[in-house]
């Protein structure tokens, strides 16, 4: 089971992880929540622009690669767009499997590829209501993605 969605609504983290379900063979659930940082109180939040349609398709493609690569029985990934306030979740990724390595690897793989390949762009939303700059892509994110190809 792979379930992907992109939404402008606040993410209900616990419900998203629970939507993975479980069966008698589930021994491991790994999950990750990426949160909007306030950067020392400077930010009201982040505005996330996305490419509707491609954003969902790209995350699904990444999740499908993870599911082929590791013995996981389910992967769920939900990503927000629009204004995300400091402290709120931006993304939730979770996987379940029989043994822990597969769930750990699948979640981290999806997060790493999602960062570099899912069409979202973050812009700072300052406390005074104006927009700050666009967030720049980090070379360490490209390196994190490359690790899965060479490794």
């Amino acid at each position, binding site marked *: 089971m792979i379930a992907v969605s992109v939404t402008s609504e606040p993410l209900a983290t616990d419900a998203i992880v629970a939507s993975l379900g479980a069966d008698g063979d589930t021994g491991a659930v790994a999950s990750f929540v*990426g949160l909007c940082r306030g950067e020392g109180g400077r930010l009201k939040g982040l505005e*996330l*622009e*996305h*490419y509707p*349609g*491609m*954003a969902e*398709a*790209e995350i699904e493609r990444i999740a499908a690669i993870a599911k082929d690569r590791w013995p996981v029985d389910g992967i769920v990934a939900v*990503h927000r767009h629009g204004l995300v306030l400091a402290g709120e979740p*931006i*993304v939730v990724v979770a996987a379940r499997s029989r043994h822990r390595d597969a769930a750990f690897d699948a979640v981290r793989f999806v*997060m790493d590829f*999602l*960062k*570099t*390949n*899912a*069409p*979202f*762009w*973050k*812009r700072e939303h300052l406390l005074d209501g104006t927009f700050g700059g*666009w*967030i*720049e*892509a980090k070379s360490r994110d490209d390196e994190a993605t490359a690790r899965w190809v060479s490794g």
Partner: protein
Amino acid sequence: MKLKYFAWVRERIGVEEEERDLPAHVNTAGDLIHWLKGEGENYAYALEKADFIRVAADQKHVRHDASIREADVVALFPPMTGG
């Protein structure tokens, strides 16, 4: 062909999307970027770091040397910063 722009590429060009007839010599994603750069100051500014620009053809990432002539929609955007 429908062209779509995102993030600061969109801001600098000044439109979210537009219909364009491509000249015959524009074959690859790289050709498209190069050609658009000559279409006005806004395009030149948005696409000045041509190597940096990412391209999707019909919602799939493509390299600059990939042909985009058969695509219905081509999107140009900066490196992604989701997650």
